[in-house]
């Protein structure tokens, strides 16, 4: 079973489960006070939340409609009829035709109703409201914030087995919200949207019921309901003037005006004229305010606090609705609009806005004040802008939050404040998915925090950047940044460090760096233990268990912690953690081939998901569970489980998961040799992926389709599929292995089918990409018999590209690949290889990367460079490396390396010893690349000339046999020794094992460190001589050089510490103590 094949996109089959984030470290938790000090934002407690979300907007709706005598529209029946079949419906009509009334009627007919008016609400507010409504019913903890994606996911999960009618009003204000709600799968729930705009529903094919004005009989019924009986003449006149508009008729019943004004707008005007000054002001105040004002506020504004007077005014006014909690609101949006327009025409809009805004500001109701004052009196933002910013952000109004931040940025600020504002903008832009702008902003913010010396915010900003990088595939950069964050982070601020570490561990997991992740988890656990933070401890233990099971030698420990977690009995509170433990155990037992145990925990995990209705996680766990059955060869059982996962994925409308499940199922059928079914399933997989632009899924699907088609003998279409897959992998970035594989497969098929044009095009693409971040490597095709591409020609093109590159990277691995090809085809490769080495040599331009590459190629060349070739090489080196003088004496070649600081190093090698010559060249060229190999800053030079010999071990032993011979030990990494030979005139010599070239062969032993060892020991010996110091001391001073050299070879952990075994043992007693408390 090739389960490995599936471990492609990281977390999909990451049986390690999802990490629990112990508090995301975001700047939303902190805010700057007006004096620039950083404050902790006080989060609302459960009681506050319960009050806040206990508000039932249906009550508001009922209050609003209570004074009215409504008639049931004839359309209502049609709406109800549609709702018996469809779960979703849009009600569309002009202002005042009675959309809200219809929602009210529906609310009376339905059982569980949630009514939401979208006016001035963000998607987050809406989601919070809905989710907390569910939470109140379920009697669980309420939440005070959520991000959009999680919120939608959660909402989708909740919809699965609820039966609620959602009435969503005034959608015309919030097309964005509607766009996100429409695609949710509604299951047994009913959604009714009311909007003035039909276009809101164009994208999704939901039934739309247009609501028009009253027809004559409805109008009459309405008037009858209000006990208004009119003469035929009057009624005709009224119907003509009103056009049957319900709002107009309602006005008519409430504000008797003659002659009849023409249309609703004129009616507004007529009513307006009737109002006295305080009535007008009351209406203006509630129209201009962004959120409903309270009676108390109106009383303070209009009657210096006389509440009774205000209440009377509101009662007689009949133009504002009293909502719950003493709030009032202009009773119809159309009238509100009119009032604003009218105030503007009167030239009083700014006056009132300013008065109202400043009133709110003085009353410290900044949330209301900001909307009124931001354009009008931006200077007032100085007083409260900083204070209100996090609140606006938390309410999900990102664009407005941005506006505030930009307004505050207009004034010159100190770096910390400017950084903070830019960081806020960055967060908004991320939510608004303006990734490019966000990246620029965070960069600015990081620099500003650094300048300000604000360590904490600097770290927060860097962490955010690192997460972005990892998410967008800039994995290498992300990793570097994370490493540097970890270095900067001492335990100066333990409160913050814990969550920071948890975030870090998530990044490491994304990067598949489980060792580092485990390290960080352990650190986090110890920190949380100090703070007695039980949740922190338990979650870091779960995370540790999860990461430890990914690398050898620690699975027992991982299993121990996972079992411990289950035993702690805390899982009722932290069921997410139990899931992690179960995941880890499933994975561990699977790796141990204990499938029965694995099945047991896998099944438990699935049940747990179902119990807590975590359907999305259930899908993941079902897939994991199915994988075990696949391992054991029970494919039918596995298929059943995948089917169930698929069912949930379809239920919840998660296309990404559908795509994954289909491709797994396709693989199973392909294994069963049922190519037809495999092809059908993979097409489905691609289809699902395309629906949500899931690039990885599309690419993977295309690749699989390619392989099925290839198996069916349809080579040309298969090749096209591979190539498409390749293109997508390249676009995703960071998928080098996958993209190269697809490309190779495509090329092989093009060769098979003789598609020369396509082939040449691909070679060109490959050459062009050399030196960039994503090199499209074609060397893989050399291994295939069908290959018709001239590899030498191809590689010499790459070499030209490398030489032309003004800032070449370290490209040792690519050259080694070529070296392998040359060694495999020795005779035909000698000349082309030599040409490449000579070209590199002639064009090194003192670039360290080119020089070290040249050095390694010479050292690794083996039989490719023999006496004849070496002759040419030496001539070229004399031309192009001025600091290296080479001459021949009797039987020996003398290399003299001249250093501007005054070291002169002479190395003598036997003429008949090509290996010695090559190593000597390699050493001296490497030294021009990295002079620090033996030149040390800050030490005084004591000697100016040093002469050493390079000897082959056997040869030397023969010479020495008369004196008893030498006895030197060599091992895998140790193939050379520096020896002192006291009797000789020049006592230092390097003895090289005859087997050096075989043992040091990086193609055969990719991890060998023979050359590094030679460079280091000889380097230290030489500098010890020049500076007249003890070798041990020199080695200590130049320690960091090792890592630098190793990097060139592509090793990362040459440091001794890296080899040390980590201690991941946790002090479990602490957790028990805490629980006991």
């Amino acid at each position, binding site marked *: 079973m090739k389960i490995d094949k599936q471990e492609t996109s990281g977390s999909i089959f990451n049986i390690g489960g999802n990490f629990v984030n112990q508090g995301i470290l975001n700047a939303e938790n902190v805010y700057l006070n007006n004096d620039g000090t950083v404050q902790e934002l006080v989060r609302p407690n459960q009681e506050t939340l319960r009050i806040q979300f206990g508000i039932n907007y249906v009550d508001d709706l009922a209050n609003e409609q209570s004074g009215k005598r409504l008639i049931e529209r004839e359309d209502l029946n049609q709406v109800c009829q549609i709702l018996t079949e469809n779960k979703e419906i849009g009600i569309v009509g002009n202002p005042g035709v009675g959309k809200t009334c219809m929602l009210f009627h529906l609310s009376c007919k339905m059982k569980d109703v949630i009514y939401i008016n979208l006016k001035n609400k963000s998607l987050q507010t809406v989601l919070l409201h809905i989710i907390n409504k569910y939470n109140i019913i379920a009697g669980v903890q309420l939440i005070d914030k959520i991000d959009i994606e999680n919120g939608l996911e959660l909402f989708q999960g909740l919809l699965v087995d609820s039966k609620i009618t959602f009435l969503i009003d005034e959608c015309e204000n919030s097309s964005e919200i509607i766009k996100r709600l429409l695609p949710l799968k509604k299951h047994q729930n009913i959604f009714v949207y009311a909007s003035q705009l039909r276009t809101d529903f164009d994208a999704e094919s939901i039934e739309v019921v247009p609501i028009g004005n009253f027809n004559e009989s409805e109008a009459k019924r309405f008037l009858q309901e209000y*006990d208004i009986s009119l003469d035929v003449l009057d009624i005709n006149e009224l119907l003509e003037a009103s056009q049957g508009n319900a709002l107009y008729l309602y006005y008519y019943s409430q*504000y*008797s*005006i*003659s002659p009849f004004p023409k249309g609703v707008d004129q009616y507004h005007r007529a009513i307006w*004229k009737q109002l006295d000054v305080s009535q007008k002001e009351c209406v203006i105040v509630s129209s201009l305010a962004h959120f409903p004002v309270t009676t108390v506020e109106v009383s303070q504004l209009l009657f210096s606090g006389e509440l009774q007077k205000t209440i009377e005014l509101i009662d*007689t006014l009949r133009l504002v609705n009293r909502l719950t909690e003493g709030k009032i609101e202009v009773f119809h949006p159309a009238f509100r609009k009119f009032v604003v327009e009218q105030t503007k025409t009167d030239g009083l809009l700014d006056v009132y806005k300013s008065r109202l805004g400043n009133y709110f500001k003085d009353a410290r109701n900044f949330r209301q004040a900001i909307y009124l004052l931001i354009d009008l009196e931006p200077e007032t933002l100085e007083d409260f802008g900083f204070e209100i910013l996090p609140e606006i952000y938390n309410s999900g109004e990102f664009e407005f939050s941005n506006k505030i931040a930009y307004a505050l940025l207009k004034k010159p600020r100190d770096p910390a404040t400017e950084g903070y504002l830019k960081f806020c903008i960055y967060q908004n832009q991320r939510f608004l998915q303006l990734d490019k702008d966000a990246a620029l902003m965070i960069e600015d913010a990081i620099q500003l925090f650094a300048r300000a010396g604000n360590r904490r915010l600097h770290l927060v900003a860097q962490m955010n950047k690192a997460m972005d990088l990892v998410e967008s595939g800039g994995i290498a950069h992300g990793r570097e940044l994370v490493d540097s964050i970890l270095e900067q982070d001492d335990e100066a601020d333990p409160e913050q460090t814990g969550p920071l570490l948890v975030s870090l561990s998530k990044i490491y997991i994304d990067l598949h760096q489980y060792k580092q992740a485990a390290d960080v988890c352990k650190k986090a656990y110890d920190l949380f233990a100090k703070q007695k933070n039980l949740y922190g401890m338990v979650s870091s233990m779960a995370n540790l268990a999860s990461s430890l099971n990914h690398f050898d030698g620690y699975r027992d420990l991982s299993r121990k912690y996972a079992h411990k977690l289950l035993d702690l009995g805390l899982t009722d509170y932290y069921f997410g953690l139990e899931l992690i433990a179960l995941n880890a155990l499933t994975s561990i037992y699977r790796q141990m081939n204990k499938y029965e145990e694995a099945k047991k925990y896998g099944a438990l995990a699935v049940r747990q998901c179902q119990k807590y209705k975590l359907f999305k996680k259930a899908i993941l766990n079902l897939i994991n569970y199915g994988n075990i059955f696949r391992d054991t060869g029970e494919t039918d059982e596995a298929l059943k489980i995948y089917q169930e996962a698929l069912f949930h994925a379809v239920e919840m409308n998660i296309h990404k998961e559908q795509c994954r499940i289909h491709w797994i199922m396709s693989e199973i059928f392909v294994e069963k040799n049922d190519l037809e079914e495999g092809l059908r399933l993979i097409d489905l997989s691609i289809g699902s992926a395309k629906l949500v632009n899931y690039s990885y899924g599309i690419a993977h699907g295309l690749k699989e389709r390619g392989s099925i088609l290839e198996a069916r003998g349809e080579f040309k279409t298969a090749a096209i599929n591979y190539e498409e897959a390749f293109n997508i992998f390249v676009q995703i970035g960071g998928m080098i292995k996958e993209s190269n594989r697809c490309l190779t497969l495509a090329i092989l098929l093009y060769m098979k089918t003789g598609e020369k044009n396509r082939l040449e095009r691909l070679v060109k693409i490959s050459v062009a990409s050399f030196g960039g971040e994503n090199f499209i490597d074609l060397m893989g095709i050399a291994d295939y018999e069908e290959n018709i591409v001239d590899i030498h020609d191809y590689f010499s093109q790459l070499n030209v590209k490398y030489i032309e590159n003004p800032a070449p990277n370290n490209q040792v691995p690519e050259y080694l690949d070529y070296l392998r090809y040359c060694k495999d085809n020795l005779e035909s490769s000698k000349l082309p290889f030599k040409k490449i080495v000579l070209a590199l040599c002639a064009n090194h331009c003192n670039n360290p990367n080119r020089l070290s590459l040249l050095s390694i190629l010479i050292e690794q060349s083996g039989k490719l460079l023999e006496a004849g070739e070496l002759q040419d090489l030496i001539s070229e080196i004399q031309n192009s490396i001025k600091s290296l003088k080479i001459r021949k004496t009797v039987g020996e070649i003398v290399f003299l390396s001249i250093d501007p600081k005054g070291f002169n190093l002479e190395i003598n090698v036997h003429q008949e010893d090509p290996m010695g010559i090559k190593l000597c060249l390699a050493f001296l060229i490497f030294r021009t690349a990295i002079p620090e190999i033996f030149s040390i800053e800050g030490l005084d030079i004591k000697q100016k000339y040093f002469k050493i010999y390079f000897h082959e071990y056997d040869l030397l032993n023969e010479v020495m046999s008369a004196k008893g011979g030498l006895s030197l030990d060599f091992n895998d990494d140790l193939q050379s020794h520096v020896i002192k030979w006291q009797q000789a005139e020049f006592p230092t010599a390097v003895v090289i094992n005859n087997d050096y070239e075989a043992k040091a062969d990086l193609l055969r032993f990719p991890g060998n460190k023979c050359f590094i060892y030679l460079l280091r020991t000889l380097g230290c010996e030489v500098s010890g001589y020049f500076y007249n110091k003890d070798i041990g001391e020199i080695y200590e001073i130049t320690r960091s050089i090792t890592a630098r050299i190793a990097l060139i070879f592509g090793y990362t952990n040459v440091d001794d510490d890296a080899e040390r075994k980590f201690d991941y043992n946790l002090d479990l007693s602490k957790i028990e103590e805490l629980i006991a408390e």
Partner: protein
Amino acid sequence: MIEDLQKIFDLAIRAYLPPLDETNSVPVLGIAFANANYPKQIEKILASISEKFNLSISPAGKLLNLKVSKASNGENLFDALLNYEEREYEWLKNHIKKSISGAFVVGAIHNGKFMIVSDNPLSFNPYQVESFNVG
């Protein structure tokens, strides 16, 4: 008939209690509706009853509770809860005796003003109140 009356008076919105002066020697209660139609309908119904009435007003919360019955047999005709001006009520309460006779009129706030509405403006008379109780 009487049910219709009550239904209409449910829609009444405001009470006017003008002070006594040269033009008003007896207490008069003005009952305002939002729509000019209602007074006309009331006129039709009350005309058929065509009797004197008993009327009492008393504050109920921040509204004024109005009760109207037939003077002949005390049969309740309708009651209503109306917005009112407290000063007007206080003035009246302090200036009239209990069970004084008076009148009431029914009108509408039309084009922003309180207007008495009648189908036959020429023969219009206020409704006579035998005992006007201010409690």
